[in-house]
């Protein structure tokens, strides 16, 4: 039995240094590694390059890292909803690279799967294609996109076991499984950490081989960005 469990968020982040590239799971505020983000915001490290679909909101999610001036470069797809982020972007305090969301997902997956680059049609004929190799397959044009190179993947799952096997819930899955094993070190925080053997192997979404460290998170807020209900 291979053990991946660590006891604290600080142990989970051991080795992290200023200037590193980090992948962070989540879509909006859904499925984000809340404990790891909090710990990074409170740490002495800074100048991170963050790869994440979105930029959080001012006082939650990735927004905590922008609020604490921890980010030098942001690679994302849709970065609205965060005023401090917008201020830093307009003041050119951070560099921002916007990427089609499917391309962003696949650049993570390619890194995970040992594929150095891939062709995708997304962005052909637009400014996203500038400087990229174009190749035609079956009469259609595709861009060559490279896998990401990253130091730490920080992901969140619903349940996990001490061997690092992960199960996600609902749309909180999103980018999290793709980032596991896509960086030098992958850290997973889970709402419920169970002993190895407690999870049905048939139900595992991400096998523990892609996870280096796992810990039980605490104080999950799981904030809703746009609470929408039926008219009654």
């Amino acid at each position, binding site marked *: 039995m291979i053990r991946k469990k660590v006891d604290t968020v600080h142990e989970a982040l051991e080795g992290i240094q200023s200037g590193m590239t980090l992948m962070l799971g989540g*879509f*909006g*505020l*859904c*499925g984000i590694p809340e404990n790891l983000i909090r710990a990074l915001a409170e740490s002495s490290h800074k100048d991170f390059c963050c790869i994440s*679909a979105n930029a959080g909101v001012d006082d939650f999610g990735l927004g905590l890292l922008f609020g604490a001036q921890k980010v030098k470069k942001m690679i*994302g*797809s*849709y*970065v*609205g909803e965060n005023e401090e982020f*917008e201020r830093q972007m*307009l003041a050119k305090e951070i560099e921002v690279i*916007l990427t*089609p*969301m*499917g*391309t*962003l*997902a*696949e650049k*993570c*997956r390619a890194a995970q799967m040992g594929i150095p680059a891939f062709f*995708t*049609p*997304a*962005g*052909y*004929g*637009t*400014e*996203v294609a500038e400087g990229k190799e174009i190749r035609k397959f079956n009469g259609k044009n595709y861009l060559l996109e490279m896998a990401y190179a990253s130091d730490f993947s920080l992901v969140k799952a*619903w349940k996990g076991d001490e061997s690092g096997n992960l199960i*996600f*819930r*609902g*749309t*909180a*899955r*999103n*980018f*999290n*499984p*793709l980032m596991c094993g896509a960086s030098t070190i992958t850290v997973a925080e889970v709402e419920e950490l169970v002993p190895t053997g407690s999870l049905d192997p048939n139900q595992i*979404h991400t096998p523990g081989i892609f996870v280096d460290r796992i810990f039980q998170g605490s104080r999950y807020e*799981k*904030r*809703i*960005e*746009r*609470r*929408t*209900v*039926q008219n*009654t």
Partner: protein
Amino acid sequence: MGLTKNQIAKRIAQELQSGYYVNLGIGIPTLVANYVPEGIEIAFQSENGILGIGPFPMPGEEDPDLINAGKQTITPQLGASYFDSSISFGMIRGKHIDLTVLGAMEVSEQGDIANWKIPEKLVKGMGGAMDLVASSDNIIVAMMHTNPKGESKLRTECTLPLTGVRCVKRIVTDLAVLDVTKEGFLIKERAKGVDIEEIKRFTQGKLIIPDEIPEIQV
């Protein structure tokens, strides 16, 4: 008098066929879900990782782990599934989605679309729009015929940065239903009370005007 945004959505809903998997963008396209015709069985996909979106939750039953791409709380319909973002865009890139409906700032007469960036204004990002327009064979644009300044959004060439090229097949505006053809924007239907002169006045790109143009039924 043209169509309201809800009427545009209702007209687009007439394009839905049983068995369709459909991706709806943010804005007017989202409203299409409210007008699925009786007896038509479809599944809505959201690129953050759900196929089979049901109604919004009842008050008190919101689940933070269940949202759509607009970050609104949702519920699953019977037969729904969840998946990661790579699978989600694989459904899109692999042409498994039957219909994509999205908004636009401009559409050109070649079917180019611009809907993500206005130079000198704050840019939030393209999200999944570039992936969707690059791979869908059936793209309907839902938009007003003119922008808030009164300028035509149907143009010879887009003036704004592009989201994708030669991809839009049909456009439903407050004034008309138009198809993108090799010769230009072909008027298929016009809104009740809207005459051809008005559509001509507010269309900057090349128009093709058949002899008979039926009214939009909504």
